[in-house]
């Protein structure tokens, strides 16, 4: 009995720290409508800065707490800089690009943290005055955890007073509802936004700083917390602070007790709870439904065009070139060429769901990883060959996409994006934690292709064949009646329902198709590398796929393929000269979003007015195409 009580108290202490971070994210979203993916990075910065300040400031209670507060303030200031320099420029950009820009920030911060503090875990001191423990029902309980338990409700109360008893809070709540009107009443919304962002960042920084006595500071804190925080705000309801609190308690308690029952994969329990909440309350416990996304006046996607014979010949020429290519390359480059092909398929699968389905995924690596592990598990435990291994890849990817897609398509916009990311993190965690089956972070090794495709050249041709057929199928699907239904659902869900399209089901199928082909890419990748690791489904891999799609432009079907080529080749070369690929990529992302919100191909087409490959000509006439 006593044991359970202590376990419950542990859960509450964790809930407080989760709540601090989640409330910040929720507040920022409420007003600016931006989901700040870098929020976890702010949390991590809070922990690192507190660690450093504790070393620098005089020892003792005053110095310690000054360090904690100082770290939170410093993160608040960093938040101000980010808002002023980056977010202000992109408030009007499409949602997806906003998310991507903050994603870029995650990469930049992650690399900077490594540069400044190094890769080792840093162990901070315990808090002066709260070092001991108290007896609770005969069990010792750390005093610091009691402090944490109190901190959550204290911050919750403080925020309530701030939002309901001050003019600033009233203005913020008004701006949450109708920013423009607040401006028309004489309030400088720009500064209101900045101040909100500072408050949210401050809370994240504080959440990180108070972790110091609880866990070692390390450079994976950012992505670890952000997935949990997303789950908390999705379950609690975006924008609801009380909801975030309740969800934080719910999830932390679940973790605290789940670890007793199912120690290896507690995240599965979290997933089940999230699933249950979302089925019954799609907008979270205390959230409110979002209105339909406001499409900017006078803008609409140019329709995809079925392409003419010219494009067919072009494709055949590319295919022929790809078939001859390996004979001109040294072996090392054949493997790179395989990687490029696999990336193209991976990007095209995501591009399919984004372009045709209008659904963004921030966790597409989930299906890539599932594909890779499907193949690897089949090879390891059933000793199957490459053919069956690839089939297993498709099977596992399909299963994952069916399950996760069911939930993701019920939500829209940022909710859906956050959910895809959370699912990918869950896949990652399962692969990472389920040591007995997946080998944890050691991965599974010796996943080599069967004899008939064991030479690099043979494997290249297998890859080329699978990728070419997949790309062809994706294209056919986009122009099949199913593709039209999917596009109709993307453009107007209401009107599509009215003409009898079951939008949610169509989207689900679209989601599953995308996951299926991502899994194919993952399976090919497993055999190419001969090994699989949990990293295959990590956030950076998801980002890679998104960047490839956005690089090529979301409005075209073959953009992602071009994007993948450019991106992969760049990566290979940049990696040769520097270790800071992440930093560079992050900066490039932020820069791209600010400069070319349409993607490169989209930009070129818009800029030079050429009716591009899949673009409707300016006059609306198909440019040399053949009607369906």
């Amino acid at each position: 009995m006593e044991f359970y009580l202590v376990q419950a108290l542990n859960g509450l202490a964790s809930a407080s720290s989760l709540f601090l971070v989640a409330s910040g994210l929720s507040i920022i979203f409420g007003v600016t409508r931006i989901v700040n993916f870098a929020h976890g990075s702010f949390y991590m910065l809070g922990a690192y800065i507190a660690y450093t300040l504790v070393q620098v400031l005089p020892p003792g209670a005053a110095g310690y707490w000054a360090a904690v507060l100082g770290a939170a303030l410093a993160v608040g200031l960093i938040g101000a800089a980010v808002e002023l320099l980056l977010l202000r420029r992109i408030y009007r950009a499409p949602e997806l690009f906003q998310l991507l820009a903050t994603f870029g920030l995650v990469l930049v911060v992650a690399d900077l943290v490594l540069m400044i503090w190094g890769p080792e875990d840093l162990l901070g001191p315990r808090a002066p005055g709260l070092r001991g423990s108290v007896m609770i029902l005969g069990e010792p309980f750390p005093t610091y955890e009691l402090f944490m338990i109190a901190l959550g409700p204290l911050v919750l109360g403080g925020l309530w007073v701030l939002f309901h008893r001050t003019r600033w809070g009233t203005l913020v709540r008004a701006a949450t509802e109708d920013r423009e009107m607040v401006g028309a009443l004489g309030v400088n919304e720009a500064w209101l936004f900045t101040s909100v962002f500072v408050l949210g960042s401050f809370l994240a920084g504080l959440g990180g700083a108070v972790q110091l006595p609880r866990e070692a500071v390390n450079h994976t804190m950012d992505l670890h917390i952000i997935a949990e925080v997303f789950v908390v705000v999705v379950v609690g309801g975006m924008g609801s602070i009380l909801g975030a609190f309740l969800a934080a308690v719910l999830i932390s308690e679940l973790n605290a007790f789940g670890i007793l029952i199912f120690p290896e994969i507690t995240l599965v329990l979290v997933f089940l709870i999230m699933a249950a909440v979302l089925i019954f309350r799609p907008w979270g416990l205390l959230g409110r439904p979002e209105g339909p996304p406001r499409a900017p006046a006078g803008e609409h996607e140019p329709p995809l065009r079925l392409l003419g014979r010219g494009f067919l010949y072009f494709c055949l020429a590319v295919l022929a070139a790809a078939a001859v290519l390996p004979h001109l390359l040294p072996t090392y480059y054949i493997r790179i060429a395989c990687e490029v092909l696999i990336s193209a398929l991976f990007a095209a699968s995501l591009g399919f769901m984004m372009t045709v389905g209008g659904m963004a995924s921030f966790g597409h690596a989930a299906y890539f990883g599932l594909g890779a592990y499907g193949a690897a598990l089949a090879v390891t435990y059933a000793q199957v060959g490459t053919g069956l291994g690839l089939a297993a890849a498709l099977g596992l990817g399909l299963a994952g996409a069916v399950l996760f897609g069911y939930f993701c398509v019920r939500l829209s916009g940022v909710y859906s994006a956050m959910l895809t990311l959370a699912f990918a993190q869950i896949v990652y965690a399962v692969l990472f934690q389920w040591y007995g089956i997946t080998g944890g972070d050691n991965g599974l090794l010796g996943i080599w292709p069967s004899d008939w495709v064991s030479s690099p050249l043979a494997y290249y041709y297998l890859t080329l064949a699978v990728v070419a057929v997949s790309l062809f199928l994706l294209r056919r699907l986009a122009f099949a009646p199913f593709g039209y239904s999917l596009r109709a659902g993307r453009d107007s869900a209401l009107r599509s329902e009215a003409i009898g399209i079951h939008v949610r089901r169509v989207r689900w199928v679209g989601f599953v198709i995308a996951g299926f082909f991502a899994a194919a890419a993952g399976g090919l990748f497993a055999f190419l590398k001969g090994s699989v690791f949990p990293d295959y489904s990590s956030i950076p891999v998801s980002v890679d796929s998104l960047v490839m799609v956005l690089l090529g432009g979301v409005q075209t079907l073959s953009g992602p393929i071009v994007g993948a080529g450019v991106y992969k080749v760049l990566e290979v070369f940049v990696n040769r000269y520097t270790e800071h690929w992440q930093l560079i990529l992050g900066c490039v992302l932020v820069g791209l979003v600010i400069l070319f919100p349409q993607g490169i191909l989209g930009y070129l087409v818009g800029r030079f007015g050429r009716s591009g490959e899949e673009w409707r000509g300016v006059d609306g006439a198909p440019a040399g195409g053949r009607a369906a």
Partner: protein
Amino acid sequence: MLALQDVHTHYGLAHILSGVSMEVHRGEVVALLGRNGAGKTTTLKTVMGLVTPTSGAVRLGDEEITGRPPYRIARAGVGYVPEDRRIFTELTVRENLEVGRQPPREGCPVWTEDQVFELFPALAEMRDRLGGQMSGGEQQMLTIARTLMGNPAVILLDEPSEGLAPVIVEQMARAISELKREGLTVLLSEQNLPFCSAVSDRAYIIEKGVIRYEGPMHELLARPRVLEQYLSV
């Protein structure tokens, strides 16, 4: 006091206002009349900076306010009462008023919470009610009261009589006359001619983004042909 000079406004490629010029003098109530889609709301939004004109100028007193962000135009003394009211539904009546509150401005009538409650006694009885739980008429009063809390010099009223019961429309007319007595300048966009004629000194008629008529209200009333042609009255 408030002047528009050859203002052109576009939404994307659509040319909505084509050279609108008008003037509102201090202490006047001026009506901007026109059918649905004539460009009344667009004119008011252009003044408020909610849409930026492609060319032309908007002046408040001696200051040019074209192209400024809405909050600066509001602080310069322009009060905006939107057509769809845009009450903050999650805020109480008093909190809604608080959002509108601005420091007193020289030369403009000063409004306090008590004074706006005096102007709209119905609101005084529901100070702590949420904006979302009010009737259309009550919301219309609140949106005007909220704008008054900013102590504006000029107030832009977009169809305040739209969708309201005749009794409430009468109350609105009384309130506008009261505002005029207090020294406020009012630009009133309307389709409801009887309502307008009771409160306005002068009138403009807009059609397809072009001003077609300008003159004292009583003169307009004496021209049935103009009324019929532009307002189908």
